[in-house]
């Protein structure tokens, strides 16, 4: 009993000590912030897909200008809701905001901009013994039917017809999908909706959909892991992930009728030579460019046109300007695609439209 008593009082002492120490610490920690009131911090949150690039950008930008940008990769959905609430200076997303989300944001803080920063593509990966990367050819229609579970065997006439030279097994196709909500699924289903009316009416385009497919993998790693392990399976992952892990991917037939393997060049091509809307709210899937890979999408930074803080607004606009120009040199080493010519011009126009009290913040 005596020992227990000592023990309890020991714990009580520890709690009290901790409380005193904590209270003591709290006071001085506030002071450094006041001494460097001049330094500007920008806060952003959102998509995980561009997070490695953004981390690199903000690090380099901090070295150049001293502006500190905190980016939290909490997911596109989180990025959108935080920018709607106005708790961050910018959001980031792989999918276009829905009309309802835009209306909510505009009613609170006025017009909101989608500024593309880079684009990404989705590689269709497979595990077929004896068939190397790029050898399997698929059309959008066949891919949609595989994921609708209407094509169930690898030697289905629809697949063999476009792969005359390949010996495809008489085996069931295990269709692997992303189980977590993700921009990758958003881009992938956006493409399948464009090429298959049945997919559009039955499944639809979203970050999570009701897959009739077989197995859900968690993240790119989960999908790739399943595909690598399960013979005769098919899946989809981000291009960067497929490239870094040397996964076998399919050539896809694009809108112009050419079979194209996923690559950074073919990703950039998707935005080249086609007319883009001025607001940049466009999915690049099924691009008309003959050299384009068909499953491509932008990733955007979301900012309000009307900035409430002059210094912050200026820092934000300058940072975005830097990102779509000088920042682009960091994209390819990190397996992200460059922004193409007309995209940059339209992104520039969007950044120039950012205002503080009805006055443009930066000029060309």
């Amino acid at each position, binding site marked *: *009993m*005596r020992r227990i*008593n000592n023990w309890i009082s020991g714990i*009580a002492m520890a*709690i009290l000590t901790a409380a005193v120490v904590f209270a003591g610490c709290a006071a001085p920690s506030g002071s450094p912030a006041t001494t460097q009131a001049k330094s500007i911090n920008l806060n952003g949150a959102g998509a995980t897909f561009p997070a490695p690039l953004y981390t690199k950008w903000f690090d380099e930008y901090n070295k150049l200008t001293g502006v500190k940008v905190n980016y939290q990769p*909490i*997911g*596109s*959905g*989180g990025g*959108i*809701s935080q920018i709607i609430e106005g708790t961050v200076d910018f959001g980031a997303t792989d999918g276009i905001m*829905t009309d*309802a*989300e835009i209306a909510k944001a505009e009613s609170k803080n006025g017009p909101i901009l989608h500024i593309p920063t880079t684009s990404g593509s989705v590689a269709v990966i497979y595990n077929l013994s004896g068939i190397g990367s790029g050898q399997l050819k698929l059309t959008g229609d066949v891919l949609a039917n595989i994921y609708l579970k209407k094509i169930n065997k690898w030697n289905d006439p629809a697949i063999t017809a476009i792969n005359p030279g390949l010996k495809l097994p008489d085996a*069931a196709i*295990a269709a692997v999908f992303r*189980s*977590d*909500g*993700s921009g990758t699924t958003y881009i992938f289903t956006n493409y399948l909706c464009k090429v298959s009316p049945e997919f559009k009416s039955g*499944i*639809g*385009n*979203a*970050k*999570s*959909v*009701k*897959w009739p*497919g*077989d*197995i*859900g*993998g*968690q993240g790119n790693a*989960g999908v790739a*892991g*399943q595909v690598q*392990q*399960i013979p005769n399976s098919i899946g989809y992952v981000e291009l960067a992930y497929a490239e870094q892990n040397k996964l076998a991917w399919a050539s896809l037939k694009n809108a112009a009728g050419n079979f194209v393997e996923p690559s950074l060049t073919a990703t950039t091509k998707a935005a080249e030579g086609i007319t883009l809307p001025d607001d940049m709210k466009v999915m690049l899937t099924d691009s008309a460019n003959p050299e384009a890979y068909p499953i491509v999408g932008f990733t955007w930074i979301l900012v309000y046109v009307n900035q409430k803080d002059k210094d912050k607004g200026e820092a934000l606009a300058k940072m975005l300007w830097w990102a779509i120009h000088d920042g682009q040199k960091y994209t390819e080493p990190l397996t992200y695609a460059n922004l193409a010519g007309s995209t940059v011009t339209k992104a520039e126009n969007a950044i120039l439209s950012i205002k503080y009290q009805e006055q443009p913040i930066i000029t060309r």
Partner: protein
Amino acid sequence: MNQCKPDRPAAEVAGDIVSAARARIGDAIFTRLTLFFSILMVTILIALLIVLGIDAWPAIQKFGLSFITSVEWDPVNEVFGALPAIYGTLLSSAIGLIIAVPISLGSAIFLSELAPQWMRRPCSFLIEMLAAIPSVIIGLWGLYVMVPFIRNPIEIWLGSNLGFLPLFSGPPFGVGFLSAGIILAIMVIPIITAVSREAIVAVPLTQREAMLALGATRWEMIARAVLPYCRSGLVGGVVLGLGRALGETMAVTMVIGNAYTLSPSLFSPGATIASKVASEFNEASGDLYIGSLIELALVLFAITLLVNIIARLLVWRTVSVRSTGE
């Protein structure tokens, strides 16, 4: 605590009297502090329930009871139902317990009754260490090491020999309810083992000696004197393990296959409540979608509560039966 005082040295008692006034203040502070902490905990629980209820309200209002019975989960058309997730949660936990309970009780009995003295502590320590491995590590190990082994040879063998049973039908993907159950078993074994071992060690030596004196074998002594005596402790251990299994998220998400299906086959990929919420919450948008995920969480809360109540009743019943029996 007062009864202890006569046992203590006189000098110490005298010291206590001198500082009695101070001690009374200390006691008062201590009482208030602990009272505050316990009220805080209860408040947090209630606040949590209220917030979950408010956020889940759009879904509760829209779907009502059909949320529990529907098998749909369609974020595009905003139709949500929880049945496959409830089924997956209960099935994977049941598989986990069926595997874990005999192994845990066996090792607890061995370590407390039969093992040579030198191996008891190290072995118990190592088993408890298993509980300290982060679930994401267990999940990765499961995905890359265990799942391939379960697919080939286990599922392929079961499928070709017992494939006529619905339980072992369907293609052997490796990921699915069976893998999830086995991962859960690995995760709850250390908990059940540790609690059961403590319970068995706490059985008075006199119980064992009395049984042995009657001429019982070691097996009879354990089965008739030791285990009945600590039954409530054993049930408690199993319930703790079940609680962990029901709520386990990361490791299960990685090996269960995350398909939203209602299949009798153990080979079939499925989903649990926790895995569904963890997978989709980050990117969910819209009040109804988020509300449905939160309602899933409430359902899990209700299941856990129900399981705990049943277990309490079980423990209470066994304790009262034993005390009236004696």
